[in-house]
Each structure stands twice: as structure tokens, then as C-alpha cells.
């Protein structure tokens, strides 16, 4: 029953995203216009195509119907900007974004876990202050600003920037979790008996706090999906985030609906594993 409810939730999310995106773009000024109308070589053919499109999508209901019919037949449409199939555009870029997300998330989680264990194991005012100051500084930097500064100073690439973004948020949560966990009586007993730190982590802490660790991982993954757009745009990575931004700037509805739907599914599936909704964090 719970799985069914979560599936309904993900489906509602995708439908809501698709409908909302389509209506928003349709109502935006300039939907039935194109810059190629000003090009003498393409003006006539472009106006003809736009008139045909306007007849097909004469109302928002007709627009939604045509979009949903296309999706039902597995056709995501043709990009107005690139003139090629949306499916092929998305397929080319999924690999880039997945590569960036996976590497960035793994590096971020590893950094956060390493430093959280290090600073929580030897708890001291210096360690607490170091964690607080580092996370405050990194959290204070919007992802777009962090990416811009790293690009200009040539200090880090897109994977490192995404990893820093994820690590800053996870470090705060993990440090708080582990600081309390190390003080549990059975953990103190194990340490007093001489058990190695790694064994205590694997046997005691992971088993007792698996749910919290997974929640932090899932939450940071959903944040990373949101951070994908500014990182890919600033570093000019040809991924899904860059495609979505380009589509939003050029009002390329089929691409925008497809990318928004795909990312909504990812976020919906990931969020359905969270026990409580996360608070707002953009970028």
C-alpha cells in the first residue's frame, strides 16, 4: 500500500510538472515566434511552420492533448531550437549529467563522512569550531558564486564544486549525528575494550543509524540534482541541466517538458524514500 501511494505521488509530481511547464511556456510572450523569422533566408518557411503550430495548438487544452498523445506514443517531440528529436538530445546528455552527479555525490559523501568521523571522534571546542566555520563559509556561498569563483581562479572543476556543495551540507548533519552516536554506552564500551574505529563504525554505528545515513545521502542527491543547472551552465558541461537552461531561455517547450519530467521522476523517486520533507534549499 505504501509503495502504491509513493508511486501515485511520483506520477502526480510528473503530471503536475509536465502540465505546469507546458502551460507556463504556452502563456509566455513569444511562444509562437522565432528569431529565424528575421532571417531573410528562413523567414517564409519559419512563418509557415509557426502558423501550422498555432493551428495545432490553438488553445491550452489542445496543447496539453497533443503533448500527452505524443508522450503516450513514446515520442517526446522535436526540439524547436535544434530541430532534432528530443529523445536523441536527452540520450546524448544523460551520460554527462550522470557522470557529474555520480562522481560529485560520491566525492562529496566521502569527504563529509571522513571529516565528520575525524572531528566527532576527537571532540573538542577546536573541532566543533572548525566544522562550524567551514560549513558556515561553504553554505554561505551560493552554488553559482562558488562555481564562478572556482572557474575564474582555476582552482576546481564541476565535479569538485558539486562535491564541496554536497559535503558542506552533509558534514553538518553527519557531525551532529556522529557526535551523539560516539557517546552511546555500548560504543564507549567497545572503544574501552580496544575495538578499532573502523570496526565500531561498520558494526555499531552503521547498523544503528543506517536510516539516518541513507536519509542524508538521498537528501544530498536531490540537492545535487537542483545544483546541476548552475554548475553545468557555468562550466559549460553539455548535460541535462545545460539543456534545460538553454530550452528555458529559448522557450523550447518539448525539450523543457521532457527534461523537467525526467528530473521530476528522479527527485520524486528519491524523495519518496525520505521520512520527512526537507526544508527549502535552492541551488
Amino acid at each position: 500500500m505504501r509503495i502504491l501511494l509513493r508511486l501515485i505521488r511520483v506520477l502526480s509530481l510528473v503530471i503536475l510538472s509536465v502540465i505546469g511547464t507546458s502551460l507556463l511556456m504556452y502563456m509566455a510572450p513569444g511562444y509562437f515566434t522565432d528569431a529565424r523569422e528575421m532571417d531573410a533566408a528562413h523567414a517564409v518557411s519559419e512563418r509557415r511552420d509557426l502558423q501550422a503550430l498555432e493551428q495545432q495548438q490553438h488553445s491550452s487544452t489542445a496543447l496539453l492533448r497533443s503533448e500527452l498523445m505524443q508522450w503516450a506514443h513514446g515520442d517526446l517531440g522535436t526540439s524547436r531550437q535544434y530541430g532534432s528529436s528530443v529523445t536523441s538530445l536527452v540520450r546524448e546528455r544523460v551520460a554527462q549529467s550522470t557522470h557529474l552527479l555520480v562522481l560529485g555525490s560520491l566525492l562529496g559523501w566521502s569527504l563529509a563522512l571522513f571529516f565528520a568521523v575525524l572531528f566527532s571522534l576527537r571532540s573538542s571546542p577546536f573541532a566543533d569550531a572548525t566544522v562550524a566555520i567551514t560549513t558556515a563559509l561553504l553554505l554561505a556561498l551560493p552554488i553559482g558564486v562558488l562555481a564562478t569563483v572556482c572557474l575564474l581562479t582555476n582552482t576546481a572543476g564541476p565535479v569538485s564544486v558539486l562535491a564541496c556543495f554536497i559535503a558542506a551540507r552533509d558534514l553538518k548533519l553527519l557531525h551532529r549525528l556522529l557526535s551523539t552516536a560516539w557517546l552511546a554506552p555500548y560504543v564507549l564500551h567497545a572503544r574501552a575494550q580496544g575495538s578499532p574505529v573502523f570496526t565500531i563504525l561498520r558494526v555499531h554505528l552503521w547498523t544503528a543509524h543506517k536510516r539516518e545515513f541513507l536519509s542524508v545521502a538521498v537528501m544530498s542527491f536531490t540537492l545535487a540534482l537542483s545544483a546541476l543547472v548552475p554548475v553545468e551552465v557555468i562550466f559549460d558541461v553539455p548535460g541535462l541541466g545545460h539543456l534545460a537552461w538553454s530550452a528555458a531561455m529559448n522557450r523550447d517547450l518539448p525539450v523543457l517538458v521532457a527534461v523537467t519530467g525526467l528530473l521530476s521522476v528522479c527527485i520524486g523517486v528519491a524523495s519518496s524514500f525520505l521520512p520527512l520533507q526537507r526544508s527549502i534549499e535552492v541551488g
Partner: protein
Amino acid sequence: MRFSTLIFIGLLGALAAALLLGSSHTYAAQDREHVSDSGSRSYLAGTDELGRDRAVRTAAALLLGLTGACVASALASSLSLLLGSVAALSASWLGRLLLYCGDLFLTLPWIFLLMLVRSALPLTLPPVQSGVVTFLLLAALGAPSFLRLTHERVSRLDKQDWRLHAHAMGLKKSQSGSQLLSHLWPIFWIQFLLYVPACIIAEANLGTLGLGIAEPVPSWGNMVTGLQAAALTSTSHLVYLPVVTLVLVLVALELTIFGAKQ
């Protein structure tokens, strides 16, 4: 700590206001003879690639960002209180529906929503209106974040003895609204503090994508975007002044939130 950081932010704001009022240059005035200048007597923090005073623009961006974020946060918190109270005090089906819609809204990719709505606006929108629309959007998108918290608090308050006693004595539910409000003030304050830095960060991220407040009105976002060109053409480290100021403000806000939690 909370009051000292608030005083620090207030001082920054006062300094920015003094700089804006006292300077002979406006934020949009261009001096083509002093393009990408480093600091001088006329231009304390140098000029950007269009010859505009960087210190004045940073001051204007600080004031605009703080004001807009505070207004957006206050609106979001008020809306969240209103919707949470309606969800808690109305029929159970309506309450469940509101909470479900809020949760669904929270799982939407926010940056896409902001990008979509902002790019759907006319290109000829005046800069001030684009700023107002941006912050109103942030206010609308921030309300669902605290909906569940408000709903739980109001539900708990509704079952308190003093409220039951008041109703038993003949007080109507609509009349006890002011009593509820006084108990909801701490939640409003916490929501407000938590959301102000989020608004500033969101506006800065939108600006780096070219979807924030339009030029020539200075904002954190378009100043960071301008940084890309300025850092390549200028040898002065003063080009990073907007970033440094933004970090100072956000760190101060984080410390304020930390103090409020304690």
C-alpha cells in the same frame, strides 16, 4: 550572539545607505574613461567593464538583496502560517489535501520552477518589476516549506485546555484567532530567519543564470555574472568585493539563526 550579528548586518546596511546617498555617482552612471579601473580616490572599489562605480553598485545590491529577501521571507512565513492554520482548523479532508499539495510542491525541482516562471516573463519587463516578481516568486515557493510545522503547532494549540475552556465559555473559534497568533509568533520568527538567507542565495543563483533582476539595477546575481568578465580584464582583487560582501552577510545571517536556535 544573535543581537551582535543583527547589529553587524544593520551596520553594513547603514554603511551601504551612506555610500549610496553620499556618492556623487549613481549605480547606473557609466564613466567610459575609467573602464575596469582599480581603486582610486574617485572610485573607492574601482569600476566595472562599463565604467560604473563598483562600491556604489555593491552597496545597492546589498540593500536590494536584504530588503527583498526580508519582504519575501515575511510573506512566505505569513502565507505558511495562514495555510497551516487553515489546514489545522478546517475539515480534515481539506487539511490533508493542503498538506499533500504542500508536500508535492516541495518535491518539485525548485530551480526549474524559478527558471521557468522567470523566463516566461516578457523580455521588456522593467528592472524594478523584474526584481519585485523575482522576490514574490520566492515568497510563494517558500510557503510550503513550513506548512507541516505550522499545521502541527496549530493542531496542538487547538487542543490546549485554555482554548477548550474559552470555547466552553462561549468564545467562538473565529474570536480566538488573536489568542492563537500570540502563540505562533516564535514560529513566524524562526521561519523568517531561516528563509532570508535562502532567498538571497536563490536570487544570486538565478542571477548567475541570467534570470535574476534585470540590468542596470544591481543585484548579487548580476554582479556575480559580471565578475566573469571583470576578473579576466582587471588586475585588481577589488573585483571580488561583491562576493566578499555577500559571504559576510550570509555568514552573519547563519550565525543569527544559530543564536536564535540556542
